[in-house]
């Protein structure tokens, strides 16, 4: 899963007197809320189906082990992501590191690469007889540590979450007024003391918010932990659901993971508000970059090692698979079929998301108040819910309430739409700000009817947001794993599930084409994010 609505939420809303939103808008928001919440309620219903006994699994020692392993993973990933992400952000913003812009883009690029793809590439590279293993052994390494288990999982998920810390820290460093540091100096503190007392405390909330996102990502992750065989709540939910008779146990675990995630979302929101308060003024002056001198070589080496691990390894591994697969004559059709199914699925979700997003963005932008805030929070929460929990909720809901929808394409598309709706609403925010009631009134006073206004003013203004909103959901939908895995109708295979099957059987050549396509899609996502300015470079 990817979480990238962080900067979208920072856009200030237009201040205007609170107006009551029109009833149809509220009804629509209510419907969306209902669609998102009812499955979650069903998760709860399903869990207590068999009375309080259903929660018995939560008290088993095995559950405690899972909680410990999940929390340990979350904490270890925080350390990894912060330990690497903060120096990367600092190098990119405050120093004269050569080719800063390139390094900065490389540092945030892994954002759009799905964790399961990164994990699988690491398996391909570092497994016994993988190309990196061979390379390292030929260089004289006695024993290459196993990629499986805790160490490998922490490595891969840290690499995947470094961008969250980098983006958040960068934003804070860029907004930081150099005069604050100078004020500390003029009040008698040396350079280090000034940094410690005047800069670090201002940056800490931003780093904290990034760290909490990294943690959320790690504990919610399903793909990478499964591939790297590290048991967490997410993997346990899946195996309970797939391989056990006791499905209410899976529901109980999913609820548990859900509460952890919501706790993190809540904490992240609080910390981020503090981070926003900590930098009330914009930056007035660009600070003199820190001269690295001879330290630029270790700095370049550090940046290069991280970029090699998070981008170089997947690119090379997948290229090798592709070469290998082509030589052995792997059927291309399988990959293309999967691409077609993926496109139909994600494309439908993207269209539906945009259709829903226009009125919702209208509500959020033009009627600020209790209802619009609630709608926004809900959309973000749905986005941040662990995919595996959401998937299970939809399964139980369709099975229990509307069996006709169980394992249908429609249910899957709806689930993907709801999950990523916040992306298209976010993309429409900026354009929607320009469609003020005054603009519409101006057009009406100049002789356009309602339809004419829509055609000549509203739609042209919204178009960039519509395109971006659809694209973001499309790209997310193409990469979506847990929802597709649990909800797809039998016989439907997408790029993500193809890759998943190949990974399960360690059948690398078969993975080559879906993996290459997914990697390409990921890089398009990154390019889009950078171009839309959602990541400040």
């Amino acid at each position, binding site marked *: 899963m990817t979480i990238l609505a962080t900067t979208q939420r920072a856009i200030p809303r237009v201040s205007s007197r609170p107006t009551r939103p029109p009833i149809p808008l509220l009804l629509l928001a209510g419907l969306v809320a209902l669609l998102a919440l009812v499955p979650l309620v069903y998760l709860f219903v399903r869990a207590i189906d068999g009375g309080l006994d259903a929660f018995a699994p939560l008290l088993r020692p095995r559950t405690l082990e899972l909680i410990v392993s999940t929390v340990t993973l979350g904490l270890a990933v925080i350390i990894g992501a912060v330990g690497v992400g903060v120096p990367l952000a600092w190098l990119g913003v405050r120093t004269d590191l050569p080719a800063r812009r390139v390094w900065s883009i490389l540092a945030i690029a892994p954002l759009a690469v799905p964790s399961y793809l990164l994990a699988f590439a690491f398996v391909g590279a570092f497994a016994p007889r993988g190309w990196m293993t061979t390379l390292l052994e030929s260089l004289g390494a006695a024993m290459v540590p196993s990629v499986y288990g805790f160490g490998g999982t922490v490595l891969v998920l840290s690499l995947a979450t470094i961008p969250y810390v980098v983006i958040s820290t960068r934003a804070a460093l860029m907004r930081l007024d150099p*005069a604050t540091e100078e004020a500390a100096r*003029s009040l008698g*503190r040396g350079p280090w003391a000034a940094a410690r007392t005047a800069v670090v405390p201002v940056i800490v909330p931003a780093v904290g918010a990034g760290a909490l996102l990294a943690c959320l990502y790690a504990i919610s992750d399903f793909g990478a932990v499964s591939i790297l065989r590290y048991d967490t709540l997410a993997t346990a939910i899946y195996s309970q659901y797939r391989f056990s008779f006791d499905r209410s146990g899976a529901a109980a675990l999913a609820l548990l993971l859900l509460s952890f995630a919501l706790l993190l979302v809540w904490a992240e929101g609080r910390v981020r508000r503090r981070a926003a308060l900590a930098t009330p003024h914009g930056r007035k002056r660009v600070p003199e970059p820190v001269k690295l001198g001879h330290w630029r070589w270790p700095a370049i080496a550090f940046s290069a090692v991280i970029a090699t691990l998070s981008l170089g390894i997947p690119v090379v591994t997948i290229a090798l698979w592709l070469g290998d697969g082509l030589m052995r004559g792997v059927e291309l059709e399988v990959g293309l079929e999967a691409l077609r199914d993926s496109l139909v699925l994600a494309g439908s979700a993207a269209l539906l998301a945009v259709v829903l997003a226009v009125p919702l963005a209208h509500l959020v932008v033009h009627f600020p108040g209790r209802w619009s805030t609630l709608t926004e929070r809900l959309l973000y929460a749905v986005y941040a819910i662990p995919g595996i929990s959401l998937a299970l909720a939809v399964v139980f809901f369709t099975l229990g309430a509307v069996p006709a929808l169980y394992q249908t394409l429609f249910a899957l598309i709806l689930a993907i739409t709801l999950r990523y709706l916040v992306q298209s609403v976010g993309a429409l925010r900026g354009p929607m700000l320009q469609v003020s009631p005054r603009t519409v009134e101006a057009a009406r006073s100049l002789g356009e009817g309602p339809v004419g206004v829509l055609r000549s003013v509203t739609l042209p203004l919204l178009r960039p947001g519509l395109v971006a909103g659809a694209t973001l959901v499309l790209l997310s939908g193409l990469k979506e794993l847990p929802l597709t895995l649990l909800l797809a109708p039998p016989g439907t295979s997408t790029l993500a599930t193809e890759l998943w099957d190949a990974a399960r059987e360690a059948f690398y050549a078969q993975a080559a084409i879906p993996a290459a396509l997914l990697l390409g899609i990921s890089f398009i996502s990154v390019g889009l994010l950078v171009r839309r300015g959602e990541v400040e470079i």
Partner: protein
Amino acid sequence: MTVPRTGEVAVRLDEVSKAFDDVVALDDVSLELEAGTMLALLGPSGCGKTTVLRLVSGFEQPDAGNVEVSGRWVASATSMVPPERRRVGLVFQDLALFPHLSVRDNVAYGIRRDRDHAGRTDELLELVGLAGDGPRMPHQLSGGMQQRVALARALAPRPDVLLLDEPFSSLDQAMRTQLRVEVRQILREARQSAIFVTHDQGEALTMADKVAVMKRGRVLQVAPPEVIYAEPATPYVATFVGVANLVPAEVSDGVADTPFGRVPLIGGEGRPDDGHALCLLRPEHFTILEAPDGPASSGGWDVIDRRFSGSEILLELRASDGQRLWVEAGSRVRHLGLGDRVGVSLRDIETVAFGRRGSTDAVSLSAPASGPEGATAQTGTPR
């Protein structure tokens, strides 16, 4: 800080130059701040005034020359004392309060090692009128209150010199006027040596003991406000501070022969050699005559603009040959307006004139009256 004796020098810049890449910010500037007084650096943006502050505070190093604070050397081209050891306080243009610290902690930041830092903090909060606001956070304060916190924070360690960089530029007009008075009073009572930078001539003239007018990295004149106004050193200073009419004149023997009559020139080294010169005539140097062709009048003038600023009225006049003149309308002729035709005569005054020498920034003779940029009526004359 011991209360400075008069005559001591709080800050001295000695032939200081500073360039950023190829842009010369300061060109051989020498400047002194007398202890216990306030100096205003006045000039348009980009004239180098902020660079002076950054050199004194230690955030820039001079390319040439020396900087002294309270008689101690602090910087030259080869080495310098770091900012934290200079005893120089700073109020930043954008305040730069520590956003993560309360008002109280902001003020106490520079004096945490003092034994009585709590008492001193209370004293300062009291001084700036924020006694009850200690626990609040900066973002909860209004602009004016933030300004006071910044001042209290800078004053807390009892700096030898306080530097203020356009300290009121982010405030609205009413708040600005009020804070100017307050800050001046606070600094006066503390006998605090201070330099402040401004591009607002009204601010410079009302607040400072001395004003240094700067242009393109050079100091054109340093003098008390009244002297800057009455005896500007260059035509640029004359037009930058107040409204100025620069009229062609023939100088001989300390007297300027202008189209409006003969005017004695103020003595001193600035007095031009005999010959062609530009003579400074302020609007209040004239009397308006309602009869344009009376015996004392210098020709007929049409009123082409009228600026009312509450206490006074300025009229822009145009002669038949196109020459323009800013003239103050006295109480008897306040009814005059556009289209009226009047005469003018010169009062019994002394003024200055600018000769050819040193007139690199002279206003060209074909446009003798300064344009509106020098004639911003709301700050046209010191109030």
